[in-house]
C-alpha cells in the first residue's frame, strides 16, 4: 500500500487523515454538546472547553494539511450511478467547507477579546482578529449550527458508504479502509 493515492486506491496518508478527523469531529461534537450542559461547580466546567479548543485547533492543522495533500494527489475514480458520483463530490466539498467554517468560527469565539489560549497548556494560539463586538456571539451561533449540519452530513456520508458496500457491492468503503475488493 502506498502513501499516495492512485486512481483506484487511497494512500495511507489520506486514510489516516480521514479516520483521525472522523473520530476528532464526532468527539468534538459530543464534547461540545456535553460541555455546554455542565454546571459551574462541575470539575469539567473549564477542563472540557480547554480540551475542546485544543483538539479543535489540532484538527484545524490536520484540515489545512489535508487540503494541501488532497490538492497534490490524484483522487480514486468515483464509483456508482451518476447521481451517486455527483452527490459524493458535492458532499465531499461540503465537508471541507463546513470543517473550515466550524474551525474558523470556533477559533474566533475565545479570541474575540484579544485574548489567546493554549493548546494543551503548551503551544499558544494568539488572538488575531477583533472584527465586531458581537464576534463571539455570531461565531458561536455559526459554530453550533454548522456543527449540527456536519453531523447530519456525516450520517448521510456513512449511509452512502454502507449503500456502496452492501447494495452496490463496490470498493468505495473498502478502499478507505486500505483494502482491495476481494482481499
Amino acid at each position, binding site marked *: 500500500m502506498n502513501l499516495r493515492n492512485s486512481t483506484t486506491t487511497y494512500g495511507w496518508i489520506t486514510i489516516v487523515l480521514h479516520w483521525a478527523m472522523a473520530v476528532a469531529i464526532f468527539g468534538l461534537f459530543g464534547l461540545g454538546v456535553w460541555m455546554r450542559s455542565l*454546571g*459551574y*461547580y462541575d470539575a469539567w466546567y473549564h477542563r472540557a*472547553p480547554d480540551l475542546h479548543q485544543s483538539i479543535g485547533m489540532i484538527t484545524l492543522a490536520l484540515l489545512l494539511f489535508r487540503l494541501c495533500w488532497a490538492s497534490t494527489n490524484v483522487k480514486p475514480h468515483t464509483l456508482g450511478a451518476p447521481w451517486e458520483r455527483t452527490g459524493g463530490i458535492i458532499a465531499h466539498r461540503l465537508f471541507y467547507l463546513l470543517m473550515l467554517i466550524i474551525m474558523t468560527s470556533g477559533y474566533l*469565539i*475565545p*479570541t*474575540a*477579546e484579544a*485574548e489567546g489560549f493554549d493548546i494543551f497548556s503548551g503551544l499558544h494560539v494568539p488572538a488575531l482578529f477583533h472584527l465586531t*463586538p*458581537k*464576534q*463571539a*456571539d455570531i461565531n*458561536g451561533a455559526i459554530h453550533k449550527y454548522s456543527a449540527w449540519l456536519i453531523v447530519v452530513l456525516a450520517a448521510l456520508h456513512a449511509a452512502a458508504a454502507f449503500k456502496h458496500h452492501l447494495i452496490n457491492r463496490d470498493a468505495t468503503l473498502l478502499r478507505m479502509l486500505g483494502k482491495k475488493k476481494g482481499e
Partner: protein
Amino acid sequence: MKFKTILGSLLITLFMAAPAMAENYIIDTQKHHAFIQFKVKHLGYSWLLGRFDTFKGTFTYDAKHPENNTVKVTIDTASIDTNHAKRDKHLRSADFFDVAKYPTATFESTSYEDKGHDRGIMKGLLHLHGVTKQLAIDVDQVGTGPDPWGGYRRGFEGHTILHLSDYHMPFAPKLGPVSEDVQLYLSIEGIRQ
C-alpha cells in the same frame, strides 16, 4: 385684600422659583467620563470586576431643592465587559442577561433624599432582564465647576448592592449563594446643558 395677598405671594413664590430651576445635565459618555462597574464574589474567594461600556443618561440638579434631583440612565446590556471573551459571551446569552431579548437596562429615579454635605440617597427603579426592582443608591457629589473647554460639569459617585436572584437569570443560582450580592459602583460626570 387677603385673597390678593395670597395670590401675590403665590406669584412671587412662582417667580422666585423660576430662576432656581433645576440644571439639566447630560452624562458625558461621548468622552467617557462616566463608568458603570460591578463586582461580584467569585466562589467567595475573590472579586470579579466588570463594567458596562455603552450607556447614556441625563440628570437634573437643583441646589435649592435637592429633593427634586433626578437621574435616568439607559444601559446597553450587550456592552458587558469582564475582560474574558467566553465569559462575556456567556453573560450575554440567555443564561444571564439574554441581551437579544432584553437589549437595555434602565434606571429611573423616583425620589432623592438629601443627607447634606453633598450626599444623598437616590431611589429609583432598575429595569433589568424584564424585572423592575426598587434600588437605593448612596450618592456623593465629587465636585463641580467650569471645565477648561467652556462647559460646566458636575460629578457624582454612587454605590449600591443588588441581589442577583431578584432578576431571575437562569444560570445565576448555579454560581452559588456567595455570588448573590452584586456591588455596583457608578462614577458619573454630567455636562450642563
